[in-house]
């Protein structure tokens, strides 16, 4: 079985049957209660038992007190999209208790703080009330652990859940040790708290949870990480040497990870000096200005931001486009517009980023779907930026960037990096200085550049955001302007041949095509299997990995009279771009959209498809 992005998904199990390794577990706590460690331990212990798992943190824009939910999905079948239906609820937050109990599916299991008294709210659920606060008082009374009560209580629910669901004690122990790397004392009291919950559950609840785990072997060799760390690792191995950024959720951890990796891997062992420059800028305008300045001076430079940052960067992005400076912008999208829902996810910047800045502009945009693609596409973005001499966007999102994903370990990059068309002093000498910064020598629209500092009297040129001719000299002549922007358009057509191509997966008897990109992939592939199994609706699949799309994409669309376009935004932003760029197919697109700030779930896609594509009648919805 492959859990890779493009891999064939195994058959789904039916939703109605309760069986092992197929559930969604939600932990409801208050922000700042320190539950993150406990939740990660739960997830990692299940992962260590060989069961495919994903973890999604639904958190508020707040440091302490507001409600937060952590959802762990275990799926023996390998589905790791968010599951809309909650099967197991661990209820610790009194503020959301009633609503949380109301929202779980019939037959769900609820592990709850006893004093909340929620058992009377529904009679179709199995409740496991635990006196968490009493237990924690008992073990910490009069001890130095008293001030850690808030944290200890979290590990008690891990113990209860593990015992009720069959999560192996040894793997929880190992997960705790991994999570708390070397902090002996912390490991000790967390293990103690875990066993307290375990023992209580053992003594108190003879009937175990129907939602259980059973050891399997589907995660061997795999790693767990978030997409931001993956992208940072990509930038590290791409040879990025300048990183300038301004803190913004959900992208901050990308640059922070890059800083951490550079402290270990970019300090010259001989001189002790850094082979990298990292600046926390005063705002996103300065961050992108530094990226473009550094790219102009030859360095591989990048920034990471989110939608509001892109809004501020727009003027500079136009400068980068028009002056043709290599630069990489990683946009970890969040829910807009304006401040929006800053801690929730969205594919909301697609249209904005693709044509960002005033005037006629178009930018290559890459759509990673997984941490591994964050890693790979970060590297591709630097190559493309230098090959094409232009800003290149990597469009991640909060779900991918900040949540925990399983992944295969990353491959080590092969070969040298691509620097594109750069003239050395020797080249300039050979040309006897007869070169023009914006001259299209090969007909691909990509000109030659020199890097500032190149020691030749004829190597220098003047870079300007104002109108310029082929030599970079100021010009307002209509013919110079048109020649230049037409060449830029030609260059964009070249980009079409260089960006990563779509991933196609056709099925016999397909009645339509479905198109997704980025994190919409996961809910889409699961929905596709469910549509097939439960409703007999077969769909061909295309996962778009970049814009502008190569010719093979047109061929795929040509073959489908109806194309469902799955996106996490209100307006069908990619569909809008496609209708504009492929007007001959405009009537074929049917948008399937989710835009509530939560990661896409398969049920949304199933319903969206069935609304427009009635099933042959295998099953009532």
């Amino acid at each position, binding site marked *: 079985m492959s859990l890779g992005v493009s891999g064939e998904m195994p058959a789904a199990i039916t939703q109605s049957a309760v069986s092992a390794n197929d559930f969604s577990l939600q932990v409801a706590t208050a922000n700042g209660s320190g539950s993150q460690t406990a939740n990660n331990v739960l997830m990692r212990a299940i992962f260590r038992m060989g069961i495919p798992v994903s973890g999604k943190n639904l958190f508020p824009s707040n440091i302490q007190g507001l409600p937060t939910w952590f959802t762990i999905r275990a799926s023996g079948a390998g589905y790791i999209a968010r599951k809309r239906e909650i099967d197991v609820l661990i209820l610790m937050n009194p503020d959301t208790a009633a609503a949380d109990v109301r929202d779980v599916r019939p037959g769900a299991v609820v592990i709850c703080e006893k004093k909340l008294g929620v058992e009377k709210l529904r009679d179709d659920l199995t409740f496991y009330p635990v006196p968490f606060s009493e237990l924690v008082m008992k073990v910490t009374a009069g001890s130095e652990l008293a001030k850690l009560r808030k944290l200890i209580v979290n590990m008690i629910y891990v113990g209860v859940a593990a015992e009720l669901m069959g999560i192996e004690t040894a793997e929880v122990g190992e997960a705790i040790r991994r999570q708390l790397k070397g902090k002996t004392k912390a490991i000790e009291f967390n293990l103690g708290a875990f066993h307290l919950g375990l023992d209580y559950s053992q003594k108190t609840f003879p009937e175990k949870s129907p939602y259980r785990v059973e050891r399997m072997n589907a995660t061997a060799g795999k*790693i*767990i*990480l978030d997409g931001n760390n993956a992208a940072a690792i990509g930038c*590290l*191995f791409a*040879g990025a*040497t*300048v990183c*300038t950024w301004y803190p913004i959720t959900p992208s901050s951890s990308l640059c922070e990870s890059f800083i951490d*990796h550079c402290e270990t*891997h*970019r300090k*010259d062992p001989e001189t*002790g*000096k*850094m*082979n*990298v*420059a*990292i*600046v926390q*800028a*005063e*705002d996103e*305008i*300065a*961050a992108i*200005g*530094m990226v*473009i*300045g*550094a*790219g*102009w*001076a*030859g*360095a*591989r*430079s990048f920034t990471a931001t989110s939608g509001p940052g892109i809004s501020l960067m727009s*003027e*500079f992005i136009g*400068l980068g486009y028009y*002056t043709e400076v290599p630069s990489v912008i990683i946009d970890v999208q969040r829910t807009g517009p304006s401040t929006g829902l800053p801690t929730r996810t969205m594919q909301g910047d697609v249209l904005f980023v693709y044509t960002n800045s005033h005037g006629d502009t178009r930018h290559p945009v890459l759509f990673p779907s997984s941490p591994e693609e964050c890693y790979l596409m970060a590297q591709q973005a630097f190559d493309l930026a230098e090959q094409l001499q232009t800003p290149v966007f990597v469009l991640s999102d909060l779900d991918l960037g900040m949540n925990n994903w399983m992944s295969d*370990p*990353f491959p*080590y*990059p092969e070969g*040298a*990096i691509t620097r594109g068309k750069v003239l050395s002093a020797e080249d300039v000498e050979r040309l006897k200085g007869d070169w023009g910064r914006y001259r299209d020598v090969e007909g691909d629209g990509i000109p030659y550049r020199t890097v*500032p*500092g190149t*020691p030749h*009297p*004829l*190597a*220098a040129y*003047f*870079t300007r*955001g*104002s109108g310029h001719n082929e030599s970079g000299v100021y010009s307002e002549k209509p013919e110079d302007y048109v020649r230049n922007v037409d060449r830029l358009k030609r260059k964009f057509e070249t980009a079409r041949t260089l960006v990563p191509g779509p991933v196609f997966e056709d099925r016999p008897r397909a009645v339509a095509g479905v198109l997704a990109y980025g994190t919409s992939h996961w809910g889409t592939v699961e929905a596709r299997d469910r549509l097939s199994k439960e409703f007999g609706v077969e769909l061909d699949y295309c996962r778009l990995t970049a814009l502008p799309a190569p010719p093979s994409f047109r061929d795929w669309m040509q073959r489908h009279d109806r194309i469902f376009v799955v996106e996490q935004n209100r307006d069908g932003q990619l569909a809008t771009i496609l209708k504009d760029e492929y007007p001959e197919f405009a009537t074929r697109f049917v948008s399937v959209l989710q835009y509530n700030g939560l990661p896409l779930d398969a049920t949304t896609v199933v319903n969206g498809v069935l609304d427009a594509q009635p099933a042959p009648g295998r099953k009532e919805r």
Partner: protein
Amino acid sequence: MSATVPSAPKTNRLGLAKSDYEGAKSTLCLGCGHDVITKQIVTAFYEMGVEPHRVAKFSGIGCSSKTPNYFLNRSWGFNGVHGRMPSLATGAILANRSLVGIGVSGDGDTASIGIGQFMHLLRRNVPLIYIVENNGVYGLTKGQFSATADLGATLKDGTVNDLPAVDLCSLAVELGCAFVARSFSGDMKQLQAILQAAIAHKGTALLDVISPCVTFNDHEGSTKSYKYAKDHEEPLHEIGFVPFFEDTLAEIPPGEVKDVTFPDGSVVRFHSVGRDYDPTNREQALAVLHESRQKKEFLTGILYLAPEQPSLPDVLGMTDEPLHQIPLEKVRPPKAALDAIMESLR
């Protein structure tokens, strides 16, 4: 310089003629103060014997920002967006710290739209000569007041400026800039010495140069006109600069002097003219600037100088090598490093 064959053209220590430092023909108004500054920049880089290919010129938007095109044709230029020259320059200088950076801006570009980036550039001490060609008006948009226009100054049509001016030099000293100078495009001798010292300086060198706008702000009632500046200029001291590759202080008259030495051995010699002023005293600089504002004096000279202050690349602990020249094996960690990162994520 050593003696040369009499008929040979005059050259600097690199054997380059002054014409090797010139740029395109200016398209600014006849008599514009900016063109005078441009000429002084050409002379300073020529006299200092800076290799043109090592110079990077930056600017934003406005009349002043057009000028990098008018000097050092053999150098790299980047004319970016309005008010954001500091970030472009910061990125470029970090990418290649062997470049000599010079940025030319105006009072609108710096004190209004760009004041945020300006302040953070100063705070970071980015190695850059930052010249503000300060004329108190927006020239390219036809004569609106800028934020450095003095309270009570008038436009040509009689409109009175009713807001106080931003004092860029006070701001710079306050933010820790280690080279703060104010000069006047009409005082070529002083400007030349300051420019040469700025080239020797390894951090941000702020030069706030009053540079009259002959078209929109050279009338009676302007406090940035040629006449006003000439009538009110009050030099703090006479300045002589001796680069490290020369050893005479020929043009400095005898009298009370103070020398400030740069790490490379270059010396700035201050000859006091009536006022006891120590340009290495930050508190005094702030006090004198404050006082001169109250008295509406136009003080010129190097207001504050601290050549040893670490610049941004030093603070970041960066390598001396231009970043794009670092070999791949030094910026792409080995496979073992990737394996170790992967192992930590299991």
